[in-house]
């Protein structure tokens, strides 16, 4: 447990802390408002101002959710890997890093689920099928399952430090896994639409207003990610504190009980 954790867990909460219910602060409230505003902006641009595509027609609007969610999910997985690495190799073993890694992975998994769901809708309209065994789709599906596994490892139990170390290792192994999976499925097959925005070969070819809507989507979902990350990692911190307090309370209760009536049982049990 880090020093800040123990201080907060042991001392009675400061007036400011005790009056606070939930995980919100001024910063998250500002961030939350910004998220709502940018989501509204995305709605207006994605459904209103942005034109229909020549080939994909109205289905192109799905991409204003599909593309930003997967980008932000990659960002989330990168944050998980980074925090795992710092936790494992850094000098200061801060559980806060572990909680950020876990919260980030949870949000990223949810975002990948959104990407896959809306991608299937888009595929049904554009390709005629929900799913194609194409390299990027298959990699994404396996990435999704890999991080569900990571989240399951986080719930294995044991002390907080054990959880932190274990999940940091698994968080880094996932980084080893994903490129190998990608390489294998790319060798296997590839027909996904080439990336248009980050294509190094030629300049951006998509309509300006479409690109702008996509950009709005990226901002909106990044803000949502940051807002969720702050709340979730604080929620996890509270769970940890509750866990520690519960254990302390149980120990104290047991001691009081044992002190109340002298009994030979404990000695008998240990022998």
């Amino acid at each position, binding site marked *: 447990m880090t020093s800040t954790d123990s201080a907060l867990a042991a001392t009675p909460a400061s007036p400011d802390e005790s009056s606070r219910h939930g995980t919100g602060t001024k910063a998250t409230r500002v961030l939350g408002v910004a998220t709502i505003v940018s989501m509204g902006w995305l709605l207006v641009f994605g459904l209103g101002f942005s034109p229909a595509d020549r080939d994909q027609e109205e289905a192109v609007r799905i991409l204003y959710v599909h593309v930003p969610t997967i980008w932000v999910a990659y960002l989330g997985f990168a944050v998980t890997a980074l925090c795992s690495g710092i936790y494992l190799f850094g000098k200061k073993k801060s559980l806060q890093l572990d909680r950020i890694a876990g919260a980030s992975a949870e949000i990223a998994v949810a975002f990948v689920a959104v990407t896959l769901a809306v991608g299937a809708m888009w595929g049904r309209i554009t390709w005629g099928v929900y799913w194609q065994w194409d390299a990027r789709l298959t990699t994404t599906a396996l990435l999704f*399952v890999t991080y569900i596994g990571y989240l399951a490892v986080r719930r294995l139990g044991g002390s907080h430090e054990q959880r932190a170390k274990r999940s940091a*290792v698994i968080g880094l192994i996932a980084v080893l896994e994903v490129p*190998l999976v990608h390489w294998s499925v790319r060798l296997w097959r590839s027909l996904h639409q080439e990336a248009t925005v980050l294509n190094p070969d030629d300049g951006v070819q998509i309509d300006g207003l479409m690109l702008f809507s996509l950009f709005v989507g990226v901002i909106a979902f990044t803000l949502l990610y940051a807002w969720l990350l702050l709340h979730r990692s604080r929620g996890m911190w509270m769970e940890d504190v509750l866990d520690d307090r519960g254990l302390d309370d149980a120990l104290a209760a047991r001691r009081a009980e044992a002190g109340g009536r002298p009994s030979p049982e404990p000695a008998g049990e240990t022998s």
Partner: protein
Amino acid sequence: MNSAPTTWRIARLVAAKDLRVEWHSRIATNQVLPFAAVTMVIFAFALDSDAVLQRVAPGLVWLATLFSVLVLVQRAFAVEAEDGALEATRVAGVDPRAIYLGKALALGLQLFVLEIVLLVAAVVLYAQSVPLEGALLLTATLISATCGLAAVGILYGGLTAGQSGRETLLPLLTLPAVAPVLIGATRATEAARGTAGAVVSDGWPWLGLLAVFAVAFGVGGALAFGPLIDE
């Protein structure tokens, strides 16, 4: 200077111990092998077409191998968990890398034997044959895929050993991780036996993938195993 030879020596001892335990318990031969064989039979029930079976036989061999890996990994750590042997070995100061390599070696040898049996089953049940020019590719594929599977299996087996819910967590972690092995080994086996017009030279890039996978997970696993099993 002499830490590397010691690691290898301990790894060999651990592997010999595991294989001896397996040999005496007979579970691998009396339960896992029959399990793999019955898997090959029920694939035929599900697919119900000689032509389809012949076409997909290499994939079925590797799928049956994958299922058996899960069973064998559970075995490899059930042996350790029963009387806290893994903790005892760690407390005795044995290098976790040596434990990892030793257990992976023992698992790999068992898998290799199992794969040979499954290949023979495929020859008998699914009318498969391997042309002579594909034999080298097939052997190399068997070895590198086995190393990769053993490396992943022992890594996640060690993590889930002694945890509640390990039976379900192990497949969840292992199957996505070994997906490249399934794809690579199946394509290479198809190339080796010329399934659906494949030629032997098609198999070499897949062998490269399998080799890189085995090395990456072998090294990564050896480094990660200690922190994962530490209490």
